[in-house]
């Protein structure tokens, strides 16, 4: 049986005046699965996410979300549907509660106290943190608040960009478990950019290896143990050193 695609890329190109960042990518992210994207820095992974979330538009090719062309979506509903958690975990001025309330506020709704406590506990933080100034949080705490904030939009597709790179081992494992739980319980499609091949193998079912704006190799996660492409072999070897 052919599994449905959450996101389909057809010859997607993205270029700026100076550089070609995405060079004609074709592929699909399976609905309801966790897919890891790995690859060296500058491979175009974050740009690919920004294209899928509608923060950028492709210079060429098509992106389909649940089989529907991305340009037919209203940008606001697209971004609620395809949530993104960025590596830098930007916090707005104000308390953690203010930051959590943001997605609902943008939609004209309010964050209830129960909801705030539930979300903050879901990402493994103590509810006492809700009243703290968001700028005083550690990198790991910011990242967790950032995940909770995106989850409040209840996205069907969740794009995670290096979200555990600043976390310690225990926090990293907590987040991995949380994302696996969300995927399992809600059927959310998760696409996870990570530098950590072990993390990719422990959470993902499928993997894309991106090098120089192209998919060098893609397939089931086991592919990382036996890559065929020479560039991928080299990348995997370097990462394991």
């Amino acid at each position, binding site marked *: 049986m052919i599994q449905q695609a959450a996101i389909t890329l057809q010859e997607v190109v993205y270029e700026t005046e100076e550089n070609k960042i995405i060079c004609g990518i074709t592929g699909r992210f399976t609905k309801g699965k966790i897919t890891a994207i790995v690859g060296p820095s500058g491979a175009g992974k974050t740009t690919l996410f920004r294209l899928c979330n509608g923060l950028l538009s492709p210079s060429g090719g098509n992106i389909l979300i649940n089989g529907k062309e991305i340009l037919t979506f209203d*940008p606001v509903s697209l971004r609620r549907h395809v949530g993104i958690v960025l590596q830098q975990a930007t916090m707005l001025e104000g308390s953690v509660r203010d930051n959590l309330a943001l997605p609902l506020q*943008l939609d004209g709704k309010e964050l209830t106290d129960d909801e705030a406590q539930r979300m903050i506990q879901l990402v493994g933080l103590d509810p006492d943190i809700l009243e703290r100034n968001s700028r005083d949080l550690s990198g790991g705490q910011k990242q967790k608040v950032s995940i909770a904030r995106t989850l409040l939009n209840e996205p069907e597709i969740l794009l995670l960009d290096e979200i555990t790179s600043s976390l310690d081992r225990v926090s990293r494992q907590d987040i991995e478990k949380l994302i696996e739980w969300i995927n399992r319980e809600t059927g959310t499609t998760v696409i996870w950019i990570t530098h950590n091949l072990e993390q990719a193998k422990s959470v993902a079912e499928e993997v894309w290896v991106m090098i120089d704006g192209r998919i060098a190799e893609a397939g089931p996660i086991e592919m990382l143990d036996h890559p065929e492409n020479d560039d991928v072999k080299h990348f995997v070897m370097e990462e394991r050193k």
Partner: protein
Amino acid sequence: MSALALILTLVFVLIPLFLSKTLQLGLEKDTLIATVRSIIQLFAVGYVLQFIFDSENILYIFLMVALMIGAAVENARKKGASIRGITWKLVLTFVVIEVLTQGILLGLHITPATAQYIIPLSGMVIGNSMVLGILFLNRFTSEVSSRREETELILSLGGTPKQAIQHSLLASIKASTIPTIESQKTIGLVQLPGMMSGQIIAGADPLQAVMFQLLILFLLLTTAIVTSTMLGFLSYPTKFNERMQVID
């Protein structure tokens, strides 16, 4: 003031020239240019104003105000070069400010509808609006670039461009309006305002001069907030495209 008295005031130009030469500040050329330009420009304006006042032709008043707006736009637009269509946004802002303030002044019979009142008050309003416009555009451009991550975060969470840029917009409006409000708090304590001093020197009753100065101050409060708010709301959409993406 007699012509001789005016010539004697050049002593105040000789002092900076002497000091600049002695201390090797290199300001002599600029000081001389500034002096010659101010003499020519002010006398030219003086003769033009005298002609307009004597002719009492409304067309000349319009022409004078249009010239002021043109000069203000030319000065301010360089600061907003990164904003698409800034020239027309500035023209619209200055025209609205002029119509609004003169509309209130003339409509409520606060000042008489004569060139003698309309032109100097328009000059003050448009001149201040220009300075405010420059302050706002400077601040807005730097706010937008320093808060880029925040703007994109809000967009990525499903915010509209207006929601995404609200922080930058309000901070810029506030920052460019604050100097006008602050300067009014200390007015009269440290120095007497220029217009009031001029009227007193020309022999006006000090209380009349104070009342006119208050009129100017209140006028400038409206000018400040309307200029930055209008420019802000006209400018922010140009920072986004139709897909609600930030334009570099």
